[in-house]
C-alpha cells in the first residue's frame, strides 16, 4: 500500500524519472504542484504536452526545433555550405556563444559508444551523408568532444566522407584561453604542442 493517494503516488513516480530527482525531491515537487493554483498546474501540464507535440528534429540537421527546417538551416545570413557536426543539440548553444561561427550544423544525437552498444548503425548520419553527396557542402567541421568516443566518431565520419572530396576539418584542442600552462594535464599539453601554428 502506498502512503499517498493514487494520483499523488503516480505524479511522484513520474517526477522520480527526472535526472537528479530522488524520492524526497519528487514528493516536494508533487506537494508544490498540489498546492499551486489550478492555472499554474495547467500551465505546467500544457508546457510538458507541448514540448512533445510541437518539437521535433530538423529534417536537415537533426537539431530540436518547432519549425522545419530549423532557424539555423533556414537562415539566409548563415553559410549553409559549411557544416559543423556536434554530438548534442545543446552543443549548438555552446558554439553560438562564440559569435564567430555562422555556418550550418549537424547534430548526431550521441557518439559511437561501444560500451553502451552504440555502433555506426545507430548514429544519425544519413542526412549528413546525403547533404555531402548532393554537393551541398564545401566543408565539414568535426566538432565532437575530444574524448575517446568523440575522437572515434570524428575519425569514423572523416573516413566515411573522405571519398566525396569535401573539405574535412577537426576543431583544435589545447590550453583553454585565460588559463595557465601549469594547470594543464599531460594529454592536453601534448595536443596543444601537436596543434601549434606558425606565427
Amino acid at each position, binding site marked *: 500500500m502506498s502512503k499517498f493517494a493514487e494520483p499523488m503516488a503516480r505524479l511522484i513516480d513520474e517526477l522520480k524519472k527526472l535526472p537528479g530527482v530522488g524520492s524526497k525531491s519528487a514528493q516536494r515537487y508533487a506537494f508544490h504542484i498540489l498546492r499551486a493554483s489550478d492555472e499554474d498546474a495547467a500551465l505546467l501540464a500544457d508546457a510538458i504536452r507541448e514540448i512533445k507535440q510541437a518539437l521535433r528534429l530538423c529534417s536537415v540537421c537533426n537539431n530540436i526545433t518547432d519549425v522545419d527546417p530549423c532557424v539555423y538551416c533556414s537562415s539566409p545570413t548563415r553559410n549553409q555550405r559549411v557544416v559543423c557536426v556536434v554530438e548534442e543539440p545543446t552543443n549548438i548553444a555552446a558554439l553560438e556563444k562564440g559569435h564567430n561561427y555562422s555556418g550550418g550544423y549537424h547534430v548526431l544525437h550521441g557518439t559511437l559508444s*561501444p560500451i553502451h552498444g552504440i555502433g555506426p548503425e545507430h548514429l544519425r548520419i544519413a542526412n549528413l551523408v546525403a547533404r555531402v553527396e548532393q554537393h551541398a557542402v564545401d566543408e565539414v567541421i568535426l566538432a565532437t568532444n575530444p574524448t*575517446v568516443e568523440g575522437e572515434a566518431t570524428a575519425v569514423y565520419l572523416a573516413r566515411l566522407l573522405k571519398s566525396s572530396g569535401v573539405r574535412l576539418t577537426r576543431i583544435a584542442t589545447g590550453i583553454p584561453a585565460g588559463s595557465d600552462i601549469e594547470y594543464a594535464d599531460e*594529454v592536453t599539453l601534448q595536443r596543444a604542442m601537436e596543434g601549434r601554428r606558425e606565427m
Partner: protein
Amino acid sequence: MRAADGTIHEMALKSSEAVVLRTYPLREADLLVTLFTRAEGKVRGVAKSAKRSRKRFGGALEPLTCVRAYWQDRAGNELARLDSCDVLLSPLASAMDYARAVALAHVAEMLDELLPDREPNDSVFRLAWGVLQALDFPAAAGTGAPEKSSEIWIPVTYFDLWTMRLLGYLPSLEECIECGEPLAGKPAYFHALRDGLVCATHRRIASSEMTVESRALAAEMFRNPVNHFSPERLPTSRLADLRKFLMQIIHRHLDRTLQTSAQLEKLD
C-alpha cells in the same frame, strides 16, 4: 575518522598504478569512477567536481587511461574519495578510430564485469597494462587517425585468452574433454553449452570448429608476451573462432553477453 581521544585522523592517502575502467556522472558535478588498481584491485571512488571542472583531472579520467591514482578510503563508505590522477598513458595520445575504441571498451568491460571489488590481481593487472600498450597505435602524419583500420585483433584475443586463463576459467585446449584424445593437428569443436573442446567423434549438433591455426596461435600466446606478435601473423579468420569460444565461456559464467563482444565481431 574521530578517535577515542577526540582527535580527527585523516584516512591515509593511498596511491597505485591504475587503469580507469568506467565513469558515471554523479549528482551535478561529480564523477563516479571505477579504477582497476594494481595495489587493491577494483576500487570505486568519487572524483569531486570532475564533471564540471576539468582542471584537476583533465583527460585523466577518460576510460582506459593508465594513471597513477591517489585516493582516500572513507570510514563506513565503500566509495573512496579520488584525490588526483597522473596520466601515464592516455588512449587519446595516439590515433583513435572506431575499431580501437571498441577494443579499448572491450578491455574495460571485461575487467569491470569479471573482477571482484577490492581484490588485487597482479597478473591480470600486468596483462591489462601490456595489452593497453599494444593497443596504442601511432597516428598517420598530420592527422589524428591511424593509417589504416587499427590492428586490434591480436591484442584483443591475447587479452581475452589470458584473462580466462588467469581467472581459472579456461579448460585445456589440447585434448577432447569427453575422451581425452589429444587434438593436436586434428579438427576440434566447441559448443555453447559446455566448456572445452571435443574431437570429431564427440561433437554435438550446432557445434563450431576451432581451426588448427587458431589453436596453434593460442598455444604460442601462452608462451610469449603480446608484443611478440606482428599483425602479419593474424590468420584470415582474425581468430574469430577462438574469441567465440572464449566469449561463450564468459557468457556461461556471467549468464549474459558482453556489450562489446557483439560490437567487436561486427567490425569489418
